[in-house]
């Protein structure tokens, strides 16, 4: 069956619609912001830029008090390059408000990997393999979890890896055919720069895959595969583009030099090399299911198809096969950096589904090609096999993915109406100075306090001694909602002890702010 560019466009649109409808499900149940502390920090930069109608060059106090040291090269400035957060803020500008547009943009950004995997595989292996792989990726639990938890830029950054590899592949093909197409190197250079802007860790993943692909091709072809003049020029272009944000780019290198996560336990343990992943000591806060193949990727039996895919690529070893193998091996290398005592490798684990789903589908495709069938029946059998496999897979992964997105951060795990009203007061208040630090009593989680901080544009902490703070928030709203009268009574007693020594600045039915 011959597929045309019209089919490609329909497939691409269907995937985009899937991203739009599925990944915004947490927003469709409630428009209150959600996510862990990282989500609050990313939201804060975009929302503040939109609220001030200015891009921030130095951090406002409520962000600076927590993240002021995160840019090691130039403290008190943005610690990530601005494009990701600026992209969210642009969404707010065109959407006309802060909260919902930021989350819509992030849902699309976070699921861009679906489109880039589709594109790469469409060009290398055809429409059925590409569409099946991308469709499965749409429901990748690990990607979904990381997005709703809040590692937003990291999700988006991974999407650039397949495109960079595609550009390298087409350039190398043209170079080896003596019909050089340097425009692919230019595109590659720009995509790499954007990749670095979005997330440094993902950039290093891309560099590792690119390096290994180059090595594989050089070994196979026994000759160099780049025009050195072109390569020098595009490296120069890359340096020029990334130098647009010098403080953030240099922060990447400053952080590499001062990485406190070096000397991880397990350094030098040879046995580690024979396991795909082994949780590290500092992986607290990540549920055990996150490390499970069957709970994050697909049922265990699908591993056979992953291996089959690897085997098919390894036996055939076309250049396009080498490209996927380079991607897989680079992921292995990044996930095993703890062998060298480096990195927070559990974060690299989040790139697994992107290559595993394509490998499974290629495995199915290849398996059917081994079956002796009539020549005119074989293409249909392959297509049928991929469709059948995809449908079976969807039955097993869709319910979990949809349920997780639909039920993300229910009830009191998001800021409630009382807290939203409080944040509006804080944001506009002249009686609570911008550089004030407030103690939030009644916090049910660090994340909720961070959301109040982010939305109120004031530095709010969830722990500390009452006597150390001049501003105290007595927040009964969550305790009341979960029916914990004992906690309400305990906090009321504490509040009454301040009656003679403080002034009430803000009072609603469930929240009061005192100045002591």
């Amino acid at each position, binding site marked *: 069956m011959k597929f045309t*560019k019209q089919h490609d*466009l329909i497939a691409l649109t269907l995937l985009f*619609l899937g991203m739009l409808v599925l990944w915004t499900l947490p927003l469709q149940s409630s428009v209150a912001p959600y996510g862990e502390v990282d989500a609050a920090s990313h939201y804060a930069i975009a929302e503040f830029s*939109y609220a001030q*109608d200015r891009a921030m060059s130095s951090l406002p106090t409520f962000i600076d008090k927590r993240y002021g040291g995160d840019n090691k090269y130039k403290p008190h400035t943005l610690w990530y390059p601005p494009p990701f957060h600026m992209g969210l803020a*642009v969404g707010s500008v*065109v*959407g*006309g408000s802060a909260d919902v547009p930021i989350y819509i943009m992030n849902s*699309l950004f976070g699921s861009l990997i679906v489109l880039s995997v589709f594109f790469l595989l469409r060009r290398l292996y055809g429409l059925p393999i590409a569409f099946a792989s991308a469709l499965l990726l749409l429901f990748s639990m690990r990607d979904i979890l990381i997005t709703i938890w809040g590692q937003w830029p990291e999700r988006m950054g991974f999407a650039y890896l397949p495109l960079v590899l595609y550009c390298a592949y087409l350039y190398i093909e043209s170079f080896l055919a003596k019909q050089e197409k340097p425009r692919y190197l230019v595109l590659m250079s720009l995509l790499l720069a954007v990749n670095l802007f979005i997330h440094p860790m993902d950039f290093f993943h891309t560099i590792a895959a690119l390096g290994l692909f180059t090595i594989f091709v050089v070994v196979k072809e026994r000759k160099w595969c780049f025009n050195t003049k072109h390569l020098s020029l595009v490296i120069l272009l890359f340096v020029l583009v990334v130098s647009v944000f010098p403080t953030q780019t240099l922060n990447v290198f400053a952080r590499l030099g001062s990485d406190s996560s070096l000397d991880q336990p397990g350094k030098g343990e040879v046995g580690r090399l024979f396991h795909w992943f082994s949780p590290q000591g500092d992986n607290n806060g990540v549920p055990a299911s996150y490390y499970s193949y069957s709970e994050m990727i697909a049922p265990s039996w699908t591993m056979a198809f992953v291996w089959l895919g690897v085997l098919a690529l390894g036996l055939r070893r076309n250049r396009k096969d080498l490209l996927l193998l380079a991607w897989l091996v680079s992921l292995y290398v990044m996930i095993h950096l703890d062998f060298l005592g480096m990195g927070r490798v559990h974060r690299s684990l989040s790139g697994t589904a992107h290559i595993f789903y394509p490998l499974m589908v290629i495995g199915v495709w290849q398996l059917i090609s081994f079956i002796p069938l009539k020549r005119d029946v074989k293409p249909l059998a392959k297509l049928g096999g991929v469709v059948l496999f995809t449908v079976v897979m969807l039955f097993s992964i869709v319910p979990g993915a949809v349920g997780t997105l639909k039920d993300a951060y229910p009830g009191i795990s998001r800021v409630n109406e009382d807290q939203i009203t409080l944040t509006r007061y804080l944001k506009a208040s002249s009686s609570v100075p911008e550089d004030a630090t407030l103690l939030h009593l009644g916090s049910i989680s660090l994340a909720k306090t961070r959301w109040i901080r982010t939305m109120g544009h004031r530095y709010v902490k969830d722990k500390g001694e009452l006597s150390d703070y001049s501003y105290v928030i007595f927040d009964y709203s969550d305790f009341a909602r979960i029916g914990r009268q004992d906690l309400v009574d305990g906090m009321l007693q504490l509040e009454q002890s301040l009656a003679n020594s403080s002034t009430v600045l803000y009072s609603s039915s469930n929240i009061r702010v005192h100045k002591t």
Partner: protein
Amino acid sequence: MKYRDMMLGCVFMVALVSLLTLGVVGLRTVVGMLLVMVVPVYFILSSFVSDDLERIVFSLFLGVGLVPALIYWPATVVSLKLTVVVVALVLVAVGFWLKRRRSKS
């Protein structure tokens, strides 16, 4: 059906689904994102990239990364809203200029 008509049909579908699932804010955000970040880069790439799918995909991925990068520095000095509009218009103008220049040569 012509490819360009089909593309417009796809954008219409995206707009409709955005409206139905996320309301007017969703429609504004998704269509606005396409207009401000993707379409200008698409015009520019039209002069360099002949393959339709490549042009769409690279416009999207370069657009969401490079357009905010272009917006950032001016927006530290003047209004963010104004910068968004100006940068998008300048990029569309560059795209048309490149196309005209190419068709002349």
